[in-house]
């Protein structure tokens, strides 16, 4: 058994002159929750479609659970596409059972599992309701259940949170945790950084068809410089020469009555907030506030994508 559920080697996909995915390589280890991030049009859905062998890569190699085509292992993988849709006239339970049976479950087992899944995720009473009578959010939950009813080893959820209210988002987070606990590997794409931050062990970030980051959440945050916010009445000119500081810039409009000013100090390389604080004491800067907080994933995302698109424009 390969230690990776998914391996991509130099995968590219071109549609005519347009390159949707450009030389992406990655490996997803077994048993992790992987976040798949990227701005709109970055190539996420195209990558996912190639993973499932719905469209073929122009070049490169893809291996899913050790097989060269996802169709060979289709009973062990699950997929929630970005564009959600179900047969409107079918009931919720029949829909889940149908997709589970296409994944190899016997029809009887599929029907039984469909009921218990609906029960477990709060849709028990809607088993015999037609899809067209369900709300959009409920329909989306049914579709997530369709993707996981056959207990796949590897699940890809494309934008699973979009369109769900906070309560159902929570239910979905629970479901993803449940899957991971049972040994499934989950790859999900999202625009909501909080979900990625809360759920993911690993992150995969692509922009303009290229992979720009692949690693842990902490690793992603480490790619952008630390920063410190300070408030002081004193002059901070004395800090300027310190080589641990990359940039100092004022924050907001200076208050008219008070002489207190806010500053943002970006650190360089391995410099720590502690040394800045020491510098302030040494230079007699009287601090009203000294605020050192971790950069958010959101900041990391914006910084990484911004750098990539800037690079892309230069090319």
């Amino acid at each position, binding site marked *: 058994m390969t230690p990776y559920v998914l391996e991509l080697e130099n995968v590219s996909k071109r549609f005519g002159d347009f390159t949707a995915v450009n030389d992406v390589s990655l490996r997803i280890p077994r048993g992790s929750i992987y976040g798949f991030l990227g701005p709109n049009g970055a190539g996420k859905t195209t990558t996912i479609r190639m993973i499932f062998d719905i469209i073929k890569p122009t070049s490169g190699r893809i291996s899913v659970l050790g097989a060269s085509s996802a*169709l060979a292992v289709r009973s062990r993988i699950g997929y929630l596409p970005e564009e959600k849709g179900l047969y409107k006239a079918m009931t919720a339970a029949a829909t889940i059972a149908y997709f589970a049976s296409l994944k190899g479950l016997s029809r009887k087992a599929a029907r039984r599992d469909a009921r218990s899944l609906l029960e477990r995720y709060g849709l028990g009473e809607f088993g015999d309701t037609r899809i067209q009578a369900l709300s959009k959010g409920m329909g989306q939950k049914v579709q997530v259940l369709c993707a996981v009813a056959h207990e796949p080893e590897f699940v890809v959820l494309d934008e699973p949170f979009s369109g769900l209210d906070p309560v159902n988002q929570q239910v979905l987070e629970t479901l993803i945790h449940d899957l991971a606990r049972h040994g499934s590997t989950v790859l999900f794409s999202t625009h909501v950084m909080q979900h990625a931050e809360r759920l993911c062990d690993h992150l995969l970030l692509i922009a303009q068809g290229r992979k720009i980051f692949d690693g842990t959440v902490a690793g992603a945050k480490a790619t952008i410089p630390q920063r410190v916010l300070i408030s002081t009445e004193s002059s901070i000119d004395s800090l300027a020469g310190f080589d641990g500081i990359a940039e100092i810039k004022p924050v907001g409009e200076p208050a008219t009555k008070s002489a207190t000013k806010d500053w943002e100090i970006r650190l360089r390389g391995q410099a720590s907030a502690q040394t800045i604080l020491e510098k302030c004491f040494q230079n007699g800067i009287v601090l009203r506030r000294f605020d050192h907080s971790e950069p958010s994933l959101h900041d990391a995302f914006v910084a990484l994508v911004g750098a990539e698109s800037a690079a892309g424009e230069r090319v």
Partner: protein
Amino acid sequence: MRNTLLIALREFVENAKTKGFWIGIFMLPLILLIGIGVSTKLAKSEPSRHFIVIDQSGAFVEAIDHSIEWEYQKSVLQALGQYAQENARPDKTAEINVPTYDAAVDAFIATGGKDAFLAKIRPLLRDNAPAFKDPARRFVRVDLPKDINAGASAATITGQLRPYLVGEKQIVVGSGHEPLFAALLIKPDGVEGAMRWTGEEAIQYWSTNLAVNDLPQEIQKALNSETRRRLYVARGVDAGQVRTIEQTWARLGTFDPNKAAGQETVSIADRIKRSVPLGFVYLLWMSIFTVMQMLLNNTIEEKSNRIAEVLLSSVTPHEIMMGKLLGIAGIGLTMVGAWLGTVFIGLRFWQGPGAAELSQALDAVAASGLIPTFLLCFLLGYLIYAGLFLSIGALCNDIKEAQSFQGPLMLIMMVPFFTMTFINRDPHGTLATILTWIPLYTPFTLMNRAAANPPMLEIVGATLLMIVTALLFLWSAGRIFRIGMLRAGNRPKLAEVVQWIRGGKDA
């Protein structure tokens, strides 16, 4: 294979749950029933129509009265026959046989008419049989309104009758008023004018209703027979003998060299059998296009609701297509089976006129190769059109877009419908031969010609053509389906589609 069957099963079950399917199943038998029922009811409920005869020649009125009465007696005899059939004792049904050809009507009138007939069949009827109800008279001759002088000139009389004929005035009939349906004016020189042009029509039929032509026909018949009778008398021929001779019909046996030796005689059952393919063509046409609509709707549902993508992560496009083809074919066959079953069972239990011939014809149809031919034409026709409709479904984003394709397609589809009677009448003609070799029409044409024994070469050739076309269409549809199902946005151009088919290049 398992997935194909699962998809087929879903298609079958989900379509069988739709209203359209059940409407389809019950529609045809219902239309047949209503058609038969309504036309009989309508015929019975037609009102009595009143007409006036102003016979200034005095030569024809009696003949007309006689002719109208004779037709009425014929309808009485027909009604008596039906009454006897409906009310016979179960063990006596076979003894009831009431012919209604001309001599039989003459005999009926001569032997005392209705009352004598009823007395004769009384022993054959059930004890609780209801009393016989006379049929209504279709045409009743009434007198000229009192204010009109029957001796006036033709122009005066027609002028005075005009308000009655156009419905402004009504004539007095018994104690009530009735509209005047028609007037017949015969001038004093009517006998002469019946035979040659005298400068003006000597016999004039006036009516605003030109759709009902039974009355002018009956009048014409009476005028003919009276004119001829006078000619016979004038030349010293015995009119009674002529009448007897005229009722003699020469026998003409009809034979078909295609039938087995010793059985070449063409019976009524044979004639029915000959037009049965027409019924099958209609059935074929109805069933293929009903299920095509389902196939198109389902394909578009999967595309517009974005179900295709989930499906494609579990099954191949090929499996989806085959599953659909199979499931919808099942629906089509169920529908056709139900229709055929209803028609066969309905006709088998039909007790009305011609029951014996119908049942013979049914046996002949069941024993002939028509049903296997029908199944062959249905399956191959289904596959050919399915290839077309699956491609359209995969190319369109929603049903609206598909409708723009359907316009031209509908025109193509109407051709077999409009040509089927011509092909049936001339099964080896140019039209039939040409349409046989146009793959879209081959199933319908071959079915239509089936009972006329077309050349073996054409049967085999046409069947091969259908098979090759079906394979080609399905193969192309497979290519289009694979790419089209995931494609959103603008409908692809024709050149692009051709490239998909040729290259199998995706998106």
